[in-house]
């Protein structure tokens, strides 16, 4: 080991010890889902890559990995979108402007938005899986020099569980992206698609031979989505998935998030399917 080299990269602040952050705004997205706009208490400007996640810490309750879902409008805060499923996420969802929390990260790699510079970008998201991929969609749309088009396929349980409806609508209406949505179960007034997200992939044209795909959602949904994309002719090394395991330290030291030889927190969470295809099909790996 080379001590000098090591110490130089050891304390990227907030890696092992959280930094105090403050909630600037909190708003309900869905009945069980809240977005928190949070900023470092010391006034520094946070940075992240679309697809990265932070460890959000509530004193006395615990910490959980949550992906960054957007920059704030002024670029000085990060938005995290949380669904209530356990003690920590419920506490996060109950936060209000002015409340304090601890933050480590952001950690992990990100979506390779540049890989889609001159190719069609296909996004397939399910449920809360739209949150980690939203900043990548935004970055692709904002890149005026980009060649290919952007197509977003998004599925949720029901119409009232469709996340970021304002963004979906704005992308579609302004024509910056083609947006196709579907729900598992319709509700009164729903005139859109009903069925799995994979059932609507033929509702938009794209150049399958050269396209790049970002897939994010429940693992079973991603497996089916990948299968469909492959059968349409997409190359396995241009299909990217964001995986979830028990991220704990976020820096590849605690061992919890291993999938075969991969540490999801540092090697991922985004992987090309070609790198993990043999790992995703084994139960309990």
């Amino acid at each position, binding site marked *: 080991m080379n001590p000098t080299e090591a110490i130089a990269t*050891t304390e990227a602040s907030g890696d092992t010890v959280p930094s*105090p952050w403050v909630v600037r705004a909190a708003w309900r997205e869905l009945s069980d889902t809240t977005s928190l706009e949070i900023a470092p208490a010391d006034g520094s400007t946070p940075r992240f890559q679309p697809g990265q996640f932070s460890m959000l810490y509530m004193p006395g309750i615990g910490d959980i990995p949550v992906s960054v879902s957007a920059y704030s409008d002024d670029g000085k805060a990060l938005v995290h979108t949380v669904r209530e499923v356990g003690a920590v996420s419920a506490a996060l969802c109950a936060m209000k402007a002015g409340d*304090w929390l601890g933050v480590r990260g952001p950690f992990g790699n990100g979506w390779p938005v540049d890989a889609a510079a001159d190719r069609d970008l296909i996004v397939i998201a399910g449920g809360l899986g739209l949150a980690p991929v939203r900043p990548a969609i935004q970055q692709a749309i904002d890149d005026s020099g980009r060649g290919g088009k952007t197509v977003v396929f998004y599925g949720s349980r029901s119409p009232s569980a469709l996340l970021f409806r304002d963004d979906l609508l704005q992308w579609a209406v302004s024509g910056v992206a083609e947006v196709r949505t579907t729900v598992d179960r319709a509700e009164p007034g729903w005139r859109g698609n009903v069925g799995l997200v994979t059932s609507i992939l033929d509702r938009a044209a794209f150049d399958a031979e050269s396209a790049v795909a970002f897939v994010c959602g429940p693992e079973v949904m991603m497996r089916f989505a990948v299968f469909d994309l492959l059968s349409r002719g997409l190359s396995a090394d241009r299909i990217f998935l964001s995986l979830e395991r028990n991220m704990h330290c976020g820096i590849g030291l605690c061992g919890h998030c291993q999938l075969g030889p991969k540490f999801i927190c540092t090697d991922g969470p985004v992987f090309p399917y070609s790198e993990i295809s043999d790992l995703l099909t084994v139960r309990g790996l």
Partner: protein
Amino acid sequence: MQEATASQVSLTARHIDGLIEALREDGYTVVGPTVADSAIVYDEIASTADLPEGWTDMQQPGKYRLSRRDDRALFGYAVGPHSWKKYLFPSSLKLWSTERAEDGALKIEAGPEEVPKYAFIGVRGCEMAAIRVQDRVFAGGRHHDSDYMTRRESAFIVAVNCGQAAETCFCTSMGTGPAVESGYDIALTELLDEAEPRYVAEAETSIGAAYLQRLGAADATAQDAEAAQQVVEKTVASITKELDTDGIKEMLYGSREDNRWDDVASRCLSCTNCTMVCPTCFCHSVTETSDLQMSSFEHTRQWDSCFSMEFTYVAGGVVRDTTRSRYRQWLTHKLGSWIDQFGTSGCVGCGRCIAWCPVGIDITEEAAALRKSHESSPKEVEDAT
């Protein structure tokens, strides 16, 4: 250890006492093997009187017993349940604390405790190899564990070329012993051909050489140097357990659906013993404790194990929810995916996991059974993908 004999000196137990005393005077916390609770464990020592003189260990799958030797060897045993990771990577370590003010503001502070400067006496070849493995884990990647590095860089290591192997040892298969390869300050070889044990010592570092010089010992004779070499050769010859590492990563990656995992899962208690005694297992969790007012919180890093259910808990449930999946993770990681992650096997062949398994599961037997099954089955697994 076949280097020139010029730097080798000859020591007695009295010199080793002098070395321990000198290290203590220089501010080192000297730790070494002692007998406690019917086992040889590592603890702070003040002199050779604390060492397990005349003791050895009998080890088999699921079995560890101390017995008397007919000589006065200080290092006449193999390895006990402890490893040096308990000092470099403590089982429990306070990392940071949080204070919440009346207005809800958080103050979060890293709490590096005073890190002792350790001197280790009696580090085996396999154990030195285990320390080098953990160096790669905690200090060789993109992120580093600064506490580990502080402890590691200040540690003074007196290694011992192994003169006594147990039935559970297989360092020769893993290429980690019985001779100590590198990374120590001083290496000893214990000679037991006279009533009083003698030690052939050599330094690998200048700081180690300086301590040897302070002891004022005579150069080792050519005969003693030769005898030291023979100690290692005799130990090599006494090791019977084997693990075939040829292509082992590919073999294990191709064995993910093997029925042997069900077989071993029917015996494995998922008790975590193997991961606790393993000198390279590094998995850990950080737990939080708070005062009753919920205003002050402490965060402690603790050893964790891939054999616990909570280890892979995610919002959707537990990923490795069967003993089969957890044992497969442990063995495949230790012998296979560790190589992809850190460029080395995670196993050093010390045999601790074999002796301390309450039902006597033997990692070498499991690996051999998997290999046999893998070699006899058609290569469907690879072809299917």
